């Protein structure tokens, strides 16, 4: 048993998919995606998607790191076990600068990586597009647009003709196998 996932059309160059993506957006499709071997410059604007939200996670991580750094230095050297060393104060925001500076960067980096994973909904080792026979080529030198059947405007024949009209080649229906 399998269920339909969407229609895939391949393109041979960055220019072709760039132009085609603009047309798909103008046509009013909402549930669709471009698969490209490289991040194509300007494709976000063509697809009508905004800026990535990863920086929010970076900021969150950075603030957490900064506070953690400050907190551990204060707690360990000034509160839990104060030690006099070299006549320096128990706590000051100056001397442990390297500690919270490094922790800010460390936590911000984790925030960035995990934010990227979270926003991309990864790890996800199964996905219907992997069923496309030449999906692997999208990591090599082919470009692909997939319009999902979830899209309100989706229609087997019309969408197929539309993809053909924007220059798509070898248009295939992706089917997702399911256990029945």
């Amino acid at each position, binding site marked *: 048993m399998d269920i339909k996932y969407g229609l895939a059309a391949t393109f041979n160059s960055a220019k072709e998919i760039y132009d085609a993506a603009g047309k798909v957006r103008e046509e009013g499709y909402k549930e669709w995606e471009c698969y490209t*071997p490289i991040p194509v410059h300007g494709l976000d604007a063509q697809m009508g998607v905004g800026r990535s939200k990863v920086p929010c996670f970076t900021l969150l991580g950075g603030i957490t790191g900064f506070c953690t750094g400050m907190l551990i230095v204060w707690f360990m050297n000034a509160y839990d076990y104060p030690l006099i060393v070299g006549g320096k104060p128990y706590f000051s925001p100056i001397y442990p600068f390297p500690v919270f500076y490094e922790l800010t960067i460390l936590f911000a980096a984790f925030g960035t990586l995990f934010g990227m994973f979270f926003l991309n909904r990864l790890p996800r080792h199964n996905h219907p597009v992997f069923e496309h026979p030449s999906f692997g080529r999208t990591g090599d030198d082919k470009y692909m647009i997939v319009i999902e059947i979830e899209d309100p405007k989706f229609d087997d024949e019309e969408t197929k003709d539309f993809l053909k009209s924007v220059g798509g080649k070898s248009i295939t229906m992706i089917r997702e196998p399911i256990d029945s």
Partner: protein
Amino acid sequence: MSVNATDHGDSISPELMKKVKPAKWEEKPLVLNKRNFHWVTEKICGIVEQKTPTWWWWCFITAMGIASFTGLGLVYLVSTGVGVWGNSNPVNWGWAIVNFVFWIGIGHAGTLISAILCLLKQKWRTSINRASEAMTVFAVMCAGIFPLFHVGRVWFAWWLFPLPNSNAIWPQFRSPLEWDVFAVSTYFTVSILFWYMGMIPDLAVIRDRAKETWRKYFYGFLAMGWRNANNHWRNFEMAYLLLAGLSTPLVLSVHTIVSFDFAVANLPGWHTTIFPPYFVAGAIFSGFGMVLTLLLPLRAIFRLHDLITEKHIDNMCKIILATGSMVGYAYAMEFFIAWYGANSYEGFAFINRAFGNYWWAYWIMISCNVICPQLFWFKGIKNNIPLVWIISIFVNVGMWFERFVIANTTLSRDFLPSSWGYYSPTVVDIFTFFGTFGFFSVLFLLFLRFLPLMPMAEVKSVMPAADPHGGKH
């Protein structure tokens, strides 16, 4: 690809352009011989997918043999005591700090290439950044060995971290050595994150090409289900840029904090404000030396001449020349300040450096670090690949001696002549350090065998075919 300088100007003021007659600016392509995307994929994946070459096994076995020197040296050290090293009063740091700073410094070029050159939009970095980042990670691993075992009772090394222990005592955050723990462990972790994240799209390519089951699982697991979707790329590119932005202040801070180990101490020859910038410049200098030492043989073995072009090598030589000159300037400035500062202890420390008990180390340092890179002013030398490789090795040797000179000349001649001594390493010191080159090579060979050597997507991105406007902006 030739870009005409009049392309932009013509439409704005054609009259002026006719008068000025701008020269044609020939920009050398970053991938030669008009290779296409598929060729890049085949080339890079081919290295991982081919049958293990015989030379690889020979190198691997040799590297393992060399690495065992470190293993044996450390076993002997742990079972006997730190006394098996040549460290003694007043030179308590000996080779341990020299080797630590040496290896950490080497790592810096990888981060410079992957982060700072990324922010500066230097497109030529793409074909060399993955291997350099791998170099960074492995070099930091080698560096970590020395302070870890220098603490003496290595099983208590975790006391360096702010973890509760049975003595109910915490790390002392006013010490630069504790700052170093944070700087180096952060540097190591962030370098791995950056390296790994950049690799995800390439691991997905290898996963999709894999035929054997173990490959599908291994690369499939590492690729995290990456699907080349534009939405993925959008978040990935933002994350990459942010990590580059985070790594830039990080890499500058790491060697700065390493230099604090010296500069915060009140010893003549160490207690100087020039140390942070001078250490960072030296680190990048030595790192690029190591990048060339590693990449030139790789280029020949895997025939990567179309990807690592003469332009790349030329650029790296220029960076070595620039940072080498900065290092030379710093050496001169240290002497000037020692004289200008009119502090007799400081003055003695520097005269002693150049003409004292370790004069030979000082002059090896000067010839390798100051004189050698100046040869890169000459085009004939920059284009002579074997010669570039030899100079890159001199740079590495010179930078090791720099750390030796800084650490040992000062310590062996401290304030009290009664405690003066002459430090020499023991056989255990020498073997342990020698073995780290094997350890580094083992890791690097495994990287070559199992992970993509170049970021394919990034290399493709700088090729003309990646431009969605067909060359017209």
